[in-house]
Every structure is written in structure tokens, then in C-alpha cells.
């Protein structure tokens, strides 16, 4: 059953649940962050509409920096601005930032410890028709390997808004991953959010499998958990919006109560969120782990639903993974 302490949406399983993209949450969050701190600036590489930076530009034109199509410069200009006191949010597609400008981020932001917030939009296969070039599937891995880099993958637009505000309040580098597709807004303004904290969404009385999920697929996991519960299979769902630093206590608490773990992410299974969980649990509490994600292939054009089903990231795939672990 749903975890009451998470204060999830009242009509969470209704067909008409509100749907917004996590990038929409960036748009509202960064405006709020800017109202709270005059040092917040936004740099965008010729994608202000699709990164949802437009509203910020409208309200704070003098603090919006149009970079043109230049992602390397996006990272390094931001580093320089941070060095003289700004809190820059840099917005582009994840395929290009951190995809193209990885070394600039590594040297001038991570090693240099500049409080730049790298916002990677259009991550995952749910980007849809744009195809493989624009569907970033390796960013969590790239960014979580960098020492001192915080990695956030919000589950819906509301959580994305909170993640952006929280990132603005840290004096460290942060990577935040956003998606393009409209997905259910399953959290509310009452739902707690703190960098470094995972949150239980669902908990059956006798759970046999723990489903650990990050990003908007946590909602898909919820739907799967409800279906499994009706068939007598108990699970726990731990939503993990902070991939790094991992909420090790919460992960361990779940692992100790179940026979196996399923991880869910819209990212390569190599190096991503599931890898982080497997790395941690293999040392602390080894148990069977099934990682759902992209299996060493690139994406392709299609609708988000078609693609998520094709790559085994829909409700049925999560249910199957749970059943497989119980065999």
C-alpha cells in the first residue's frame, strides 16, 4: 500500500492524474530559486523553449545568458561566473551537456569545485521521435563517477522543482537529469524532498522483493507494485531521486527485508543507477539483483510508450522482473 508519509497525489492511480515533464519542474523551480537568491543565473545553449528556461528569461532578462550552440563554452563560462560569486544553472540536452562537454565539466567544475548546476534535459529514450542521437542514456554514469558531484534524477515535475531549489542552496557542483515527456505528477508540495534522501512510495505487509527506482519510472513501478499486490506478491518501492550521494541506510533497510532487488532506470544498466545499487549491496548485503534499464544498445525513434515497452521499462516488464526473482 501507499506510504502515507510520502503525501502522494490524492488521485495517484486515476487516469486523469496531472501530467507534466520534469523539465517543466526545472522551469518553475529555477524562477523560484532566482527569486530567493539574486546570484542565480541561467545559461542556455540555444534551447530556451525546450529546456523551459524561457520563463526565467522573461522574469530575469539580465540574468539569462544565451550561449548559442556552444556546449563547451556553456560549461566553462559558467565555471568562470561561479568563481566570482554566481550560482549558474546551465541548461542543454544531456546528450550535449554533459555528453559533449564532459572534460570541461570534469576539470573546470568538478575538480575546480565550482557550484555550477548542470541541467541535462531530454534524457532517456522517452525523448521519443528525435531518435538515438538525442536520447542520452549514459549521463548518470558519467556524472556519478566525478568526485564531489551530486547527481539528482527527479521523479516528476514537482520533485524536479524542489530539486532545483535545493541545488541552488548547495555550494557544490550538481547534475540534475530531466526528461522531455509528460509523466504523472505523483508527488505533492507536501512530499518531503532532501538531497541525499530516498523515499518509500509503497510497502506491502509482507514484502518479498524491493523495487528501487529513479526518475519518472518510479511511477511505473508504483503501478506494477499495485498490480503485483493484487496478485498476492508483496513489494517495497524505494524511490531514489538522489543517485549520488546514495541514501545507503534506506537502501540497506529495504535490502534486509526482501529476497531480491529490482532496479529501474531509463539509462544504460552499465554504470547507471542499478550499477550504483549493485556496487553498494554487493559489499554490504549481497542478494539477487535484477537491473532494468537499457541493455548496451542505443535508442531509436518512436513514441515514448512504444520505446519504454520495447526496451523493457513498462509496467509488465517490472512485474516480470519481480516474478523472475521469486522463481
Amino acid at each position, binding site marked *: 500500500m501507499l506510504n502515507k508519509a510520502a503525501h502522494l497525489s490524492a488521485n495517484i492511480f486515476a487516469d486523469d492524474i496531472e501530467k507534466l515533464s520534469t523539465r517543466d519542474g526545472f522551469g518553475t523551480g529555477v524562477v523560484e530559486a532566482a527569486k530567493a537568491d539574486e546570484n542565480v543565473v541561467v545559461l542556455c545553449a540555444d534551447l530556451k523553449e525546450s529546456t523551459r528556461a524561457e520563463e526565467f528569461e522573461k522574469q530575469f532578462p539580465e540574468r539569462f545568458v544565451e550561449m548559442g550552440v556552444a556546449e*563547451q563554452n556553456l560549461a*566553462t*563560462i559558467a565555471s*568562470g*561566473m561561479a*568563481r566570482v560569486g554566481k550560482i549558474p544553472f546551465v541548461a542543454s540536452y544531456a546528450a550535449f551537456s554533459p555528453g559533449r562537454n564532459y572534460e570541461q565539466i570534469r*576539470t573546470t567544475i568538478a575538480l575546480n569545485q565550482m557550484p555550477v548546476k548542470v541541467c541535462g534535459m531530454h534524457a532517456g529514450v522517452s525523448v521519443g521521435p528525435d531518435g538515438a542521437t538525442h536520447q542520452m542514456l549514459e549521463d548518470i554514469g558519467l556524472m556519478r563517477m566525478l568526485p564531489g558531484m551530486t547527481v539528482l534524477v527527479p521523479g516528476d515535475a514537482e520533485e524536479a522543482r524542489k530539486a532545483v531549489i535545493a541545488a541552488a542552496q548547495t555550494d557544490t557542483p550538481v547534475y540534475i537529469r530531466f526528461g522531455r515527456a509528460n509523466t504523472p505528477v505523483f508527488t505533492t508540495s507536501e512530499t518531503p524532498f532532501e538531497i541525499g534522501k530516498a523515499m518509500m512510495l509503497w510497502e506491502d505487509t509482507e514484502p518479498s522483493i524491493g523495487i528501487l527506482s529513479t526518475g519518472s519510472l518510479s511511477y511505473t513501478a508504483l503501478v506494477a507494485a499495485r498490480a503485483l499486490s493484487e496478485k498476492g506478491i508483496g513489494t517495497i518501492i524505494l524511490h531514489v531521486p538522489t543517485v549520488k550521494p546514495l541514501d545507503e541506510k534506506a537502501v540497506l533497510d529495504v535490502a534486509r527485508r526482501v529476497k531480491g532487488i529490482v532496479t529501474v532506470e531509463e539509462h544504460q544498466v552499465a554504470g547507471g543507477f542499478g550499477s550504483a545499487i549493485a556496487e553498494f549491496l554487493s559489499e554490504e548485503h549481497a542478494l539477487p539483483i535484477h537491473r532494468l534499464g537499457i541493455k548496451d544498445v542505443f535508442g531509436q525513434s518512436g513514441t515514448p510508450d512504444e520505446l519504454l515497452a520495447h526496451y523493457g521499462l513498462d509496467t509488465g516488464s517490472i512485474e516480470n522482473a519481480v516474478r523472475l526473482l521469486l522463481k
Partner: protein
Amino acid sequence: MLTNNEIKKLESHAEAIRETIIRMLVAAGSGHTAGPLDMADIFTAFYFHILKHDSKNPEWEERDRLVLSNGHIAPVLYSTLAHAGYFPIEECLTLRTFGSRLQGHPERLRLPGLETTSGPLGEGLSQATGMAYALRMDGKKQHVYCLMSDGEQEEGNTWEAAMFAGKHALSNLTAVMDRNNIQIDGMTEDVMPLEPLADKYRAFNWHVLEVNGNDIGAFITAVEEAKSIFEKPTLILAHTIPGKGVPEIEFDYHWHGKPPTKEEGERFLKQLRTMGGSVPHDYA
């Protein structure tokens, strides 16, 4: 204009800085030689005349910002900072050793006085541009300088920054290019032709000055002119002699990326002494 005596004094600083560079490279057994030697005059001009800075308060907010983009010439930065009072000169001999604050390439978090971490090429102009843009946004008066190499003009990131600085007419930004014509694999114009550099920057809406980068007085005059240009950022194309100060290695690109041996170091120091100014230590 500086008086002859003032220039002579600066030249003797430059020679002491060169001496330390040779000593630290011999001690380290690795590192770059030609670039640090040819930039000693320009570093002297900055830290002993041009910059508003305070060695006892490196993060002083009112300081001018100097970004070293081509971090591989770290020995001249370290030697200059030490001679300017940021840390003891003896510490220079720890260059590139385990536990030293003087990393092979400069790391901001390890050593006070550094504006950034550098080494990977083509990133300094962009960071300096970001600093100049943000300072101007806040109505601050500090000037931002970026020292960069000619070889890193081959990096796309450099031109992305040049385009941005040109668009915003950042007159509080002055870039200095060490035009020594060498890079690791040979002469720049053989590896990848860069010319016409002045025309390229002018086309990007920069003001361009050319100067003998080993003439301290002329260089200081050029920086003063750059600061008087209010319409554009300025590039100072500083023509330098690679390995400047040690006649037997001047102009030889093989000295871009290697240090002198102990014997070579002794010979180089003797050659240095034939220049103006005095060298107080007896190294050989």
C-alpha cells in the same frame, strides 16, 4: 611610461624567476621548459606592476583576476607567485612531487593565489570571459586577464569564448597570447597553421595589439592601451622567444615539453647570468 631604473628592476625580478624555473625543473625531473622561460617577462610585468593583488590575502575581492589557461607552464606561475610573496621560494623545489601544493598542472584548491585549475587546453579564455561577464553584470571594476598559448588556438572552446566576448564587447577582459610559435609536435604553422591570428580575432570583434613579449616596458604599455579600449575586449599578441634567457635552447621546439638534466641546468644557469641583473646564488 616606466623609467629605465624601474624597468631594470623588473628585469632583475624576471631573471630571478627564470633562475627558479630552471632549478625547479631540474629538481622535478619532468615538466615544460620553453614556455615558462619565455613567459617570465610577462608574468613579472603582471605580478610586479600591472595587477591589483595582495599576496597576503589571495582571495581579496577587489583583486584583478589573472587566469592561466595553458596550465602546463605552471613553473613560471609558481616561481612568480613565490617571488611575489605568496609562498616561500624554497617550496618551488617541491614541484610535481607527492604531497606538494605545486601540482604538475595548477590546482586551485591546493594553492592559494590561483583563479582556476588548468591544464586541459582551450578552457581558460572561456572561464576568464565568464568572470568578466559576471563582474560587469554586478558593476564591478576589476579587470580580468587571460594568459594563453598559441597552440591552444587549435581548440574549438577558445573560439567559442572569443565569439561570446566579442558579442558582449567585454572591455574588462584582456587576453594575452604567448605567440612563441611552438607546440609539442613542432612549429605551430607546420602542425596546424594558425595565422592570420590578428585578423581572426579582429573578425570576432576584438581589438588586437602586437608586442614583443620579452620587452617588459613595451608589454606594460600594451596592457595600458588595452585597458583604454572601451568598445571591445583586447587581445595582446605577445611575440616571445621560446626558451628565452637560455641561448642554447631558444627557438628549439624540442624544449617545449621536457626539463633540463642536472648538467644542463648548471649550464643554463651560467648562460642566464650573462643577461642583465645579478644572480645571487651560486648554483654550479
